[in-house]
């Protein structure tokens, strides 16, 4: 643009003041200070326009801002901390409060359940499934369903939006929300006194109403079951979202709830539910009990049968033993009977023998007696005749031999009949001779006979020798002959 003065003059002639303005603009463009001053006056609006157009400014600035913040924090953290303190303090406190409340709620639930009958069942379940008790408690307690959600205008108590779960019969939600507001007012008015405290929870049996108070709207959910602490978080977040999206509509609410129809999906998200997980697990406990019962039954029957069998066996054994014993006894009895018969037979034989013996004995005795009588007669009839005035005896004389034989026989028989024989030998003399010599002779003859008989083998004690002339001899024995006579006596 620079040139000779002539050209410069020519330019002035041609463009006049516009040229000066152009030059001034050029100077502004080239002078960085002036240029930045110029841009500074429009940069905010420019950014605003661009940001409104496609949001590129945020995207472009984000890395720079991040870097700047990083740089700032690394160079002077204290400054950043000071700036954030008013924000972070309440945020952290709120967060801690929330966390503590959640922990406390869980802890309370655990404590409440720890000593009940149900807790023992859960402990058993924990033992059975191998899970920790806390897990079981969580599984069993976190069972709930959000049945209804009310979005209520804070100021008027009018219902802005309402959603209800399927299969849940809700009463007129407009009246309910108004009454809920009235009751909150009543409670706040009656008990809370001054301050910003709000009713946050209502509980009736299985139902719990959780209420979250926003600046312009109240979000209330009706929960059946045990509401976990996460529900409160969900409630807070939903309330924040609603306020964020519809702040102006809430502020200027004049009774037309149509503006909040778009909130229905958001409220529907609050209708969370956690069903009781009913796993189709086999009922092991029931099976075990059943098996145990059946086993016990079978065992009992088996035992019973066994005992029956044993009893029967014992009975059979006893019976057999008894039969055996009976057989033995019968056998013994038979044997005894046989023996008895044998004994009787032998007894009979013996008796017969005895009888025969007796008979024989009697016969023998009779025979003996007869023989004794015969022998006695024969002996007493015997006589030995001596030579005159002699006493000699021929031992070989037949009569002596016969006499000796008879006496021996008599002795034998009387031995059998247990009798004692005494044979008296009487020596006789004839009338010749003197009485004295005759007496002597008679005695001598008797003695001689006795001696002869003793020599012949007759025992001496059987024989007694008498001379008949002795005074004490009976006269029947006196015979007038030279002989010896005999008299037999039996004792």
């Amino acid at each position: 643009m620079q040139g000779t003065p002539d050209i410069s003059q020519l330019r002035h002639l041609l463009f006049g003041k516009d040229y000066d303005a152009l030059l001034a603009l050029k100077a502004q463009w080239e002078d960085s200070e002036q240029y930045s001053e110029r841009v500074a006056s429009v940069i905010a609006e420019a950014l605003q326009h661009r940001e409104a157009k496609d949001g590129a400014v945020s995207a472009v600035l984000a890395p720079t801002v991040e870097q700047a913040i990083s740089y700032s924090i690394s160079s002077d953290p204290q400054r950043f901390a000071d700036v954030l303190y008013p924000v972070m303090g309440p945020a952290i406190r709120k967060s801690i409060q929330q966390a503590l409340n959640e922990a406390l709620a869980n802890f309370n639930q655990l404590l409440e359940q720890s000593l009940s009958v149900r807790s023992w069942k859960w402990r058993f379940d924990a033992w059975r499934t191998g899970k920790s008790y806390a897990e079981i408690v969580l599984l069993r307690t976190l069972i709930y369903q959000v049945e209804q959600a009310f979005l209520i205008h804070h100021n008027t108590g009018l219902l802005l939006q309402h959603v209800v779960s399927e299969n849940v019969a809700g009463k007129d939600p407009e009246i309910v929300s108004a009454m809920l507001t009235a009751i909150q007012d009543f409670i706040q008015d009656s008990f809370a006194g001054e301050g910003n405290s709000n009713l946050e929870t209502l509980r009736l049996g299985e139902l719990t109403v959780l209420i979250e108070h926003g600046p312009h709207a109240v979000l209330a959910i009706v929960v059946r079951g045990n509401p976990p602490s996460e529900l409160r978080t969900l409630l807070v977040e939903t309330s924040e979202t609603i306020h964020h999206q519809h702040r102006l509509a809430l502020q200027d609410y004049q009774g037309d709830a149509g503006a909040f129809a778009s909130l229905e999906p958001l409220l529907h998200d609050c209708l969370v539910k956690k069903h009781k997980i009913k796993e189709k697990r086999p009922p092991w406990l029931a099976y075990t009990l059943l098996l145990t019962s059946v086993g016990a039954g079978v065992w009992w029957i088996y035992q019973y049968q066994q005992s029956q069998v044993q009893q029967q066996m014992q009975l059979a054994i006893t019976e057999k033993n008894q039969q055996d014993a009976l057989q033995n006894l019968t056998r013994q009895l038979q044997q005894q009977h046989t023996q008895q018969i044998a004994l009787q037979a032998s007894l009979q034989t013996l008796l017969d023998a005895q009888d025969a013996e007796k008979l024989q004995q009697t016969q023998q005795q009779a025979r003996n007696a007869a023989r004794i009588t015969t022998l006695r007669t024969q002996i007493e009839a015997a006589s030995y005749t001596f030579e005159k005035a002699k006493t000699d005896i021929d031992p070989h004389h037949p009569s002596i031999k016969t006499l000796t034989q008879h006496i021996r026989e008599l002795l034998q028989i009387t031995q059998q009949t247990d009798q004692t024989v005494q044979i008296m030998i009487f020596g006789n003399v004839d009338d010749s001779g003197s009485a004295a010599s005759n007496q002597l002779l008679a005695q001598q003859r008797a003695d001689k006979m006795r001696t002869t008989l003793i020599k012949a083998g007759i025992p001496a004690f059987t024989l007694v020798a008498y001379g008949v002339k002795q005074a004490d001899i009976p006269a029947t024995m006196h015979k007038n002959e030279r002989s010896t006579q005999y008299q037999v006596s039996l004792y």
Partner: protein
Amino acid sequence: MIQQKICLLGSFSVGKTSLIRRYVDSLFGDKYLTTVGVKIDKKQLRVADQDYSLMLWDIAGEDDFTSIRPAYLRGMGGYIIVIDPTRPHSYDAAIAIHEMVKTTVGHLPAVFALNKSDIKTSWQLDTLQYQHLHQFGHPIVETSAKQDLGVENMFLQLIQQWSKQHG
């Protein structure tokens, strides 16, 4: 659908509850009035192709022993003050209530309902009092719970005031 919170006010036993009973959808019993001090009913009606859902806060009657809880008045779109003209005390109470509402909530659409119009001969409201009531600038409707008179009109009068405001 326009929803509005309407408070039903008035002295003790002026017949507020009886007045609306046949016209509204109820969910709660009268015991709420004596316990919580308020009972909510709903009145739905259609005026000039516009559906209205009026939440009626039947607030326990004010007397020497019971005072209206101001919290119940918060956010209402209008109110009905029921007067029993057979009892002059209810008129005084109505004036006091009206003043109280204006102080605590501000100027709002309102209707004065002179109840028990079936026994108008027993009314003890004098002309001066009637004029005074008119001076408040709110419609005055004569009603009778016994003869089903004026109740629909009472609600209509309220709705018309809103229409004027927004129209």
